[in-house]
């Protein structure tokens, strides 16, 4: 049975939260991790895409950019003035 989108999103969120500050994750990293975990049959690329979209649209995560785009927890920018 396919993994629910919400469950994927939660799991992705956990990954992002855990690696925050240590390693920047890309959408592709999250997708590959989920597929590795559940297998392509249970969790398609498209499912992951929807999960990421949910994660972002809900505001739980945001995209960041440092030479490449990553998915991260919302936070105030280092460069932004106080």
């Amino acid at each position, binding site marked *: 049975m396919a993994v629910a989108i919400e469950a994927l999103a939660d799991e992705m969120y956990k990954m992002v939260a855990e690696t925050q500050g240590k390693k920047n994750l890309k959408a*592709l990293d999250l997708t590959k991790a989920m597929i590795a975990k559940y297998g392509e049959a249970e969790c398609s690329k498209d499912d992951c*895409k929807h999960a990421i979209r949910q994660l972002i649209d809900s505001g739980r995560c945001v995209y*960041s*950019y440092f030479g490449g785009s990553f998915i991260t927890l919302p936070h105030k920018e280092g460069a932004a*003035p106080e």
Partner: protein
Amino acid sequence: MADGNGKPKAQMLDELEKGPWPSFVKEIKKAAETSPVCHDLMGQLEVSYEEKRSHWKHGGIVGVLGYGGGVIGRYSDLPDQFPNVAHFHTLRVNHPSGWFYTSDALRTLCDIWERHGSGLTNMHGSTGDIVFLGTKTDELEPTFKELTEAGFDLGGSGSVMRTPSCCVGQARCEWACYDTMAACDDITRTYQDELHRPAFPYKFKFKFSGCPNDCVAAIARADLSIIGTWRDDIQQDDAAVAEYAASGLNIQKDVCNRCPTHCMEWDGKKLTIENKECVRCMHCINVMPKALRPGKEKGAAILIGAKAPILQGALLSSVLIPFVPAEELLDTLKELVSRIWDFWGEYGKNRERIGELIQRVGMANFLDGIGLDPVPEMVGSPRDNPYIYFQGKDGDQGT
């Protein structure tokens, strides 16, 4: 500046109001009339001019909700001195194909930007977007809201498909071998998700040129360069050729001698083109537009891989599909793109453009990966080194 709002005079920048070419400093000053932000921009820029260095800092996280691209975060490193540009983000607004506008559309954009930002723009950015130059984090979402309500959307930034662009094509050019504007618009629309939500290893650009003159420089700066061309013979009007000759054009010297394959002959009366050897460079057509025209069997070549030099040196796109008839172009392109993106997603490293990936894994492996057969049109010439990785198992006698 002269308006005495307490800021130092921009003496160096004032020098750039002189001279006949339109002045960007005048533009900033014009905008300053209604936008205080522009005073601080002038101020900080004057400091840069004095110190010979940028005073901007990276910004990585700002954007509009749900999108991962379309906004470039930017902060001043002199925020105390120039508080109005402490934030100075840009919005990249997706331009309409071919950069066509009505006066009303332009005014709508102006109004939105005057309300929410500096009132300064680039028409356009190098990728082709309408660039709204400088606003605060708070204004991003409201600007976006007004833009979408007016029918505009953001363009790309980050690891996404970037805003595709195209030459004026069939709208005003007799040489366009396919409908560049339709193709550009269709691809932009089809891949909205890929444009707004970064899911790629790095950026991916499309550019559409209607003929080999390549008026959007697709071959130099697009990961996928779609360049119009034709398959049959150049259309030739002998009477018009004669007119050019009569009017003083030196056909031997300026046309035949400059043909890269020397496949044209001019005997003083009749121009003969050995079309089999013509490489469709456009030169003769460019010189004699009334006499020569691209053939009737029109379409495009699809080339892959161009990019700027960072990191391993610049690349030009190279031929992937030598010819697709105009009618089949969009289907072929979409089918192809999905396979390319899959392969890239699977094997591409962070910040690795498709052209770099192809170089790393080898073109033949890339072709295998996307399911295309090798054809000689893909190479300038076959390999000259003997370092061939033969496939297959022991005892394989074939090639």
